[in-house]
């Protein structure tokens, strides 16, 4: 599978993260989104008239919507990531998969505006972003009462991966994550999943690796 990718794009990271969690190798084709605006060149608009990233090509299949890419990855390599086991969970998964687009528009919009000075009404995007975070917090709080750590179920689904990147990067758009304890616990669970990978602004959990012994560095150096 070939991913047209931008390292700083939370939407591209969704696909890289999902593939890594599933152990699916991706061939990355970096696109000069900033400063080059390569995604708006005729070659790219022919591939994706919407002019958005990422784009996923798998054989004859060409996908330009992240939800479809997540479905494709999970269906081919990890059906456990699809909430197909009961009707409620399946519907919730769709609900939060769609909700992720609101996060892209609000939190993602604020980030582009604040960090890369793309045009937009920052204050209004931030207000919408806070409304979306509050909605997510309520959902995740209710899920905790149901003994479920994730959005649609007691295990992570593609809906969690769809929402995760823009939420964690909210501070890039000047939006604080401090007052959302359930969001904090949820993103901590995702960052602890086997196969988790980082992107700039989203750190790994350093506490999961051992505190090194001061002499360990010398020993490894000698081995090399």
């Amino acid at each position, binding site marked *: 599978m070939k991913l047209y990718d931008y390292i700083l794009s939370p939407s591209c990271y969704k696909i890289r993260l999902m593939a890594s969690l599933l152990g699916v190798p991706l061939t990355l084709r970096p696109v000069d989104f900033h400063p080059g605006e390569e995604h708006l060149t005729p070659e790219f608009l022919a591939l994706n008239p919407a002019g958005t990233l990422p784009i996923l090509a798998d054989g004859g299949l060409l996908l330009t919507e992240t939800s479809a890419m997540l479905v494709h990855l999970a269906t081919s390599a990890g059906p456990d990531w699809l909430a197909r086991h009961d009707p409620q969970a399946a519907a919730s998964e769709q609900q939060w998969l769609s909700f992720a687009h609101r996060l892209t528009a609000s939190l993602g919009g604020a980030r582009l505006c604040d960090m890369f000075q793309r045009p937009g009404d920052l204050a209004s995007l931030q207000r919408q972003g806070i409304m979306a975070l509050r909605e997510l917090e309520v959902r995740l709080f209710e899920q905790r009462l149901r003994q479920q750590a994730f959005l649609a179920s007691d295990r992570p689904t593609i809906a969690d991966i769809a929402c995760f990147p823009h939420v964690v990067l909210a501070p890039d758009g000047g939006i604080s994550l401090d007052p959302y*304890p359930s969001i904090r616990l949820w993103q901590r669970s995702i960052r602890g999943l086997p196969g988790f990978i980082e992107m700039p602004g989203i750190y790994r959990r*350093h506490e999961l690796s051992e505190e090194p012994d001061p002499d360990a560095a010398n020993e490894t150096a000698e081995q090399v």
Partner: protein
Amino acid sequence: MLSADLPPMTVVPALMPQGPFALWRSESGILSLQADRCPHRGMRLSHGFVRGEALSCIYHGWRYAQNGRCLKIPAHPRLEPPEAIRVETYAVTESGGLIWGCLETPAGAPPNFDGFAPLRMMSVKVSPQMIATSDEVDRRADGALAIELAGQHCLFLARAQPDGSTLLFCLIEEAAAPEARIAVSRALELFRCRLEADDLQKEAL
């Protein structure tokens, strides 16, 4: 902060009226409340990580003990950090499912709200006064605000934030069933929404 919101090996910014402080729980469960600023380069310690019984700064990995003393500077792994390098450390305790911090010498144990357990913490963009004077609440002798949400008896603890907003803790009767808790949580959203809308309207006038 709610006890349930802070599992072992986590650090969070505790939103106190004086500003954020680094609140963390060690692997063995011990709580610490410290200044949210690494003395080395001023990085917020609440962005750090908790390994074992120590808090590390995310910037350079400087490691601090529960008493605030610097234990390790990774750039100089064999150096015993001087005793003078420490973060301010404050009193913190846990009672009734809530974590209580105190920046001065505590005058006594934190208040007890018999029969109630904390449900949620949330931020509200209005002042604590505005919440306390809302028609829906009654101030109790112990300072808590009594309110009925979704047919349940609830208590509010409202704490001012440096920006004039409020950190609101909602407590619910201990015996409340999960469905009742969900109903209260949703009613709480509505309560916040109305308060913030009223506040905007007042500002517009």
